[in-house]
């Protein structure tokens, strides 16, 4: 009996040894095959350039205001994509853009401008008080999108359709004749509101 049991145990041991070997072999083979596929894919579907920069840039509002500390949206996008800048520095985009960027990068969302956060500001455009303008061209030089026309000693005016509302022209005006004015709601910009969903009427 005792001998038999021992034999059985031996048999079992051999069996398990074989099973283990098979399992290891299968795993190794699997690893090799999958590794080969991955390697092949990385060569075959190699993406040129850094698509992340494009994606980040697409989310940014392109006001080119530089309030993030970078000279324009594209440089900021590059910095965000390479991890050198936080995704919550875009002031015109507000929390909405910060949220989209955080989602894209897979990092935790941080509100713009510290804890209190900032909603996207209502869209405003620059307005020049043409009676006060002295025609110094200072604003024309700083406008990132060429939205101000005029020339030396001549009155300047803003192309509303081009203005991104970056406010860069406001501080440089020597006579403080530039103000930011909200765009008036009209039929062309009117939107349907979010419906009021009367679900929780006071318990």
């Amino acid at each position, binding site marked *: 009996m005792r001998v038999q049991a021992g034999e059985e145990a031996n048999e079992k041991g051999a069996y398990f040894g074989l099973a283990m070997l098979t399992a290891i072999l299968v795993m190794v083979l699997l690893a090799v095959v999958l590794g080969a596929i991955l390697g092949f894919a990385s060569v075959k579907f190699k993406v040129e350039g850094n698509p992340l920069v494009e994606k980040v840039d697409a989310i940014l509002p392109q006001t080119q205001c530089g309030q993030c500390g970078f000279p324009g949206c594209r440089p900021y996008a590059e910095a965000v994509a390479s991890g050198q800048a936080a995704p919550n520095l875009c002031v015109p985009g507000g929390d909405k853009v910060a949220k989209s960027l955080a989602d894209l990068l897979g990092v935790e969302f941080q509100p713009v401008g510290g804890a209190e956060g900032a909603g996207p500001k209502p869209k405003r455009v620059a307005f020049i008080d043409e009676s006060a303008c002295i025609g110094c061209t200072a604003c024309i030089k700083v406008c990132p999108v060429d939205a101000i026309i005029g020339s030396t000693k001549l009155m300047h005016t803003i192309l509303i359709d081009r203005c991104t509302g970056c406010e860069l022209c406001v501080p440089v005006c020597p006579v403080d004749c530039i103000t930011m004015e909200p765009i008036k709601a009209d039929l062309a910009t009117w939107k*349907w509101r979010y*419906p009021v969903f009367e*679900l*929780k*009427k*006071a*318990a």
Partner: protein
Amino acid sequence: MSSPHILTAGSKVSTIMLLVLVALLPAIAAYYFFFGPAILISLTLASATALATEAMMLKLRSYPVKFFLADGSAILTGWLLALSIPPLAPWWLIVVGTAFAIIVAKHLYGGLGNNLFNPAMAGFAVLMISFPAIMTHWPTPLMLAQHPVGLAEALRYYFSGALQGVNLDAVTMATPLDTLKTQLSLQHTVGEVKHMPIYGSFGGKGGEVVAAMYLLGGLFLLQQRIITWHTPVSFLVTLALVAAVFNGINPTHYASPMFHLFTGGAMLGAFFIATDYVTAPTTPKGKLIFGTGVGILEYVIRVFGGYPDGVAFSILIMNAAVPLIDAYTQPRVFGHNT
């Protein structure tokens, strides 16, 4: 207020729920007739528990309690659960099941319209897993019973857990499906088993009439356009087809399609549970896939699984697949090619 400015007269969630409750009435009447008054107690208990827990959850979630209690969805959940479990049982069984259904399966998932799993079936599954012994004691049909249980006696059993003069086994028995499974495992043939007194013309005695009443109620819902034909038809046809295949291969070991259609919860499941709006697909193709899946699983669990019936588990499993089914079965939109 934006358009449209008119609504279908009388179309309300509560109307839909009410019609479904009405459609259950013939089956309840048959239940009462064949299995005694115990079912009325369990329905009452289930309704009360459902309303109480629903009100509690609404309050906790600071929803308008009266407004939502009136929609009737909680009572329907209670009724469906009561009709799925043995009617002669301790009071706490139905209370625990219903409370789980409403609190966990419904409200913790977001309340009306947001639950992934059918609340009644989730409650059933919990009871089935937790208290399997009680869940197999079904009352004997009145025409076979030597000791019919009246209303007073049923009430006593509900709240004291004891019957006068007899023990529970004398007034209850296993279900026809359960009996078939047990007897088949004892090497009897389907033909031999079906001659036992608890079997009727094609299902269990009494139970087959209740099933027919569910069918009747289901047809009423179809006629009222509360449900569409897709789910019940695909469910029942699949169940019958699979049963027919196995029955054709080995009639001594596998019961006929008719037997499968009219025993257990097949009819109740097909017309009242698998058609639950919230937890079933919304696309026609999706409903067909859903019904087919439930039909196959139902047969597999019933015949090869460890539980006497498989409606609850098959529906719960398919519930989990509903978002995927819906996403892949979107119908062609006007002006699109595919």
